[in-house]
C-alpha cells in the first residue's frame, strides 16, 4: 500500500522535469526585449571585433594625408581622421583592445574577489576583519582616482591599465560576495553538509560559491561596461593605452582639438562607448531580473 503511494508520488512531478534552472532563467530573459536587444548588440560587437582584420576596410594605422578629414561616405563609413586613417577600422581594432582588457579585468577581479569574499564571509574572525578593513580603505578612494594613481605609478600600457582597473574592481566585488556568503552560511543545507562530514574547502567550493554565482554573474556584466568606460577614460587622459594602438578613449582624445570643426572624429568613438556601456548595463539588469523573478513582477 505504502509502496504504491510512493510510486504515485514519484510520478506526480515528472511533467516538470527537464527544465533546469538555466533554462528557466533563459526563458525569463527572453521575455525582456531590452535585454535581448542589448545581448544581440554585445554579441554583434564581439563578433565584429574578433573578426576586425577581416571586416575592416583599411589597416587601422594606414596614414593617407590626401584623404584627411573625410566626411562619412561609402568609402569611409565613419569618415577619416586628421591623418587620413579610417575611423571605422580604428574603432573596430580599438574595440578589440577595450573588450579584451575589460574581459580580462572582470575575469581576474571576479576570481580574486570570489575567493577573498567567500573566505572572509565563511571563516569570519580576524581574517574577515583584515580583508574587510583593506577593502574599506580601497573603497574610500574614488574608483577613477585610484585607477589614475595606479596607472600613473606603474606607467602606461595595456597590462598596467588592466591591472589598475582590476585593483579598482576587487573591493566592491569582494563586499558583494562576502555579504551573500554571510547569508548562505546560516542556511540549513550548509549545516547539513557539515553534518555529512564536509570539510571547509569542500563546503565553500561545492555549496557556497555556486550559490553566490547569480549575483556575481550580474555584477560581472555590469562591471564589464564600467571597465570599458574606465579604459576609455584612462586612455583619454593619456594614462591608458599608448597611441598609435587604437582605443576608443584615445581616439576620442586625439580628436579633441577638432571637436568643433569636424564632428565624426569624436561622435563615433563616443557613441560606441556610450552604446556598449548602455548595452552591458541593460543586459546586466535584465539578467538580474531573470535570475530573481521576485524582483520584478
Amino acid at each position, binding site marked *: 500500500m*505504502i*509502496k504504491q*503511494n*510512493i*510510486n504515485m*508520488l*514519484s*510520478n*506526480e*512531478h*515528472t511533467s*516538470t*522535469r527537464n*527544465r*533546469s*534552472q538555466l533554462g528557466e532563467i533563459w526563458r525569463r530573459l527572453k521575455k525582456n526585449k531590452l535585454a535581448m536587444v542589448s545581448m544581440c548588440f554585445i554579441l554583434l560587437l564581439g563578433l565584429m571585433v574578433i573578426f576586425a582584420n577581416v571586416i575592416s576596410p583599411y589597416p587601422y594605422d594606414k596614414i593617407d594625408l590626401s584623404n584627411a578629414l573625410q566626411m562619412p561616405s561609402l568609402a569611409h563609413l565613419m569618415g577619416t581622421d586628421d591623418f587620413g586613417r579610417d575611423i571605422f577600422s580604428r574603432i573596430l581594432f580599438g574595440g578589440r583592445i577595450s573588450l579584451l582588457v575589460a574581459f580580462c579585468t572582470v575575469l581576474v577581479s571576479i576570481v580574486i574577489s570570489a575567493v577573498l569574499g567567500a573566505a572572509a564571509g565563511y571563516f*569570519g574572525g580576524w581574517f574577515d576583519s583584515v580583508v574587510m578593513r583593506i577593502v574599506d580603505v580601497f573603497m574610500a578612494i574614488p574608483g577613477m582616482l585610484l585607477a589614475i594613481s595606479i596607472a600613473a605609478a606603474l606607467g602606461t600600457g595595456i597590462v598596467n591599465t588592466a591591472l589598475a582597473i582590476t585593483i579598482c574592481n576587487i573591493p566592491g566585488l569582494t563586499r558583494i560576495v562576502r555579504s551573500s556568503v554571510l547569508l548562505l552560511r546560516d*542556511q*540549513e*543545507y550548509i*549545516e*547539513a*553538509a*557539515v*553534518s*555529512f*562530514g*564536509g*570539510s571547509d574547502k*569542500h563546503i565553500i567550493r*561545492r*555549496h557556497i560559491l*555556486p*550559490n553566490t*554565482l547569480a549575483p556575481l554573474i550580474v555584477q560581472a556584466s555590469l562591471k564589464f561596461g564600467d571597465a570599458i568606460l574606465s579604459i576609455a577614460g584612462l586612455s583619454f587622459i593619456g594614462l591608458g593605452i599608448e597611441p598609435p594602438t587604437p582605443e576608443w578613449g584615445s581616439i576620442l582624445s586625439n580628436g579633441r582639438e577638432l571637436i568643433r570643426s569636424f564632428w565624426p572624429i569624436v561622435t563615433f568613438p563616443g557613441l560606441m562607448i556610450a552604446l556598449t556601456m548602455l548595452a552591458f548595463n541593460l543586459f546586466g539588469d535584465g539578467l538580474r531580473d531573470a535570475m530573481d523573478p521576485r524582483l520584478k513582477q
Partner: protein
Amino acid sequence: MSKLLNVKDLTVQYETDETIIHAVNGISFELEEGKTLGIVGETGAGKTTTCLSILRLISETSGRITGGEISFHGEDMMKKSELEMRKIRGSKISMIFQDPMTALNPVMTVGKQIGEVIRKHQKCSRLEAADRAKEMLTKVGIAPERCSDYPHQFSGGMKQRVVIAMALACNPSLLLADEPTTALDVTIQAQMLEMIKDLQKQCNTAMVLITHDLGIVAETCNSVGIMYAGELVEYGTAENIFERAVHPYTIGLFQAIPSIEERTARLKVIPGLMPDPADLPKGCKFSPRCRYSTRQCKTQTPPYCEITPGHFVRCFCGDYKEGE
C-alpha cells in the same frame, strides 16, 4: 547487544554577552545497536542541542560542551580531532534535519548531493557514486530518473525522502533524526515513519528520534526520554513511560492528548510556560508548573533515581515510590 552510544552527564551552554544559557544540563542515556530512542520535549528543551553535540556541531563562537562524556562504539567522542569527526559525520553518524525545504542545496541536483556524501566517505568514481545515489533514491521510493532534478522540483515530502537517502547513503550505524516529520503533513508523516523504520531494519541502524509527538514515539521507539528545560525528567523503556509514567510532567503530557473515547470540551493542559534557560528556577525546574510541588521541590534539586530497573525519574516522587 553492545552499547552503541553512551551519553553521560552531557552539559551544553550557549554564551551571549550578558548571560549564559543552560541549554542541556547533565543528561545521560544509552542506545543499543539497531534500537530507537525517542526524545520528547517542548521547543527549547534542548533536544536539538543534544543531537548537535553528539556530532560535535555546536558552533564554537557561542556554544560549548562544558561537561560530560559521549562514547560511540566505545570511543570517546570528546577526544576526537576535527578531522576524525569529519570522517565520522555522514558515514557512521548522520543527521536528518527538521526542515527538508532548506536542507538541500538549491543549485545542485539531488543525485549529485547524495553522490557527494558517498564520494566523501568511500573511495569510488563519480559514476559509481551516481549509481549508488540512484539506488538510494529507489530505496526511499523516488524514481531513479529523477536524480538529475533540482530540489525545487520536488515536493516537501519527497525532499525529506532525499534527505533521508543522503543520511543513509553510507550505512551509518547511528541516525539522528531531528523532528523529521514536523514540517510534513500527517499522511506523509505516516509514510515517512514507515519508511524510516523499514530502512532502519534493513541497515540495522540505531536512531535517536526527536519529536513533539508522543504518538510517533509509541509507534517507533524502544526507549523514551522526556526532556524538560535541558534535563531528562523521565527516561525508560517505551512500556515504562507509556504505562507507568511517574513524573508529573510526563503525566501532564499524556493528559494533554485528546482521547477518542471520552468527549471532552477542553484538553487538560500543563499551566505556564517552560522557564527561560538563561534563568532557570532553583530546585526542580518543573516545580513552578507542577501541581504536586512542595517546599522541598523549590529549594532542592531532586535526585535522578532509578525506580525500577531501567526506569529513571528526576523527581522527589520517585523517592516515595522507592520508600514504599
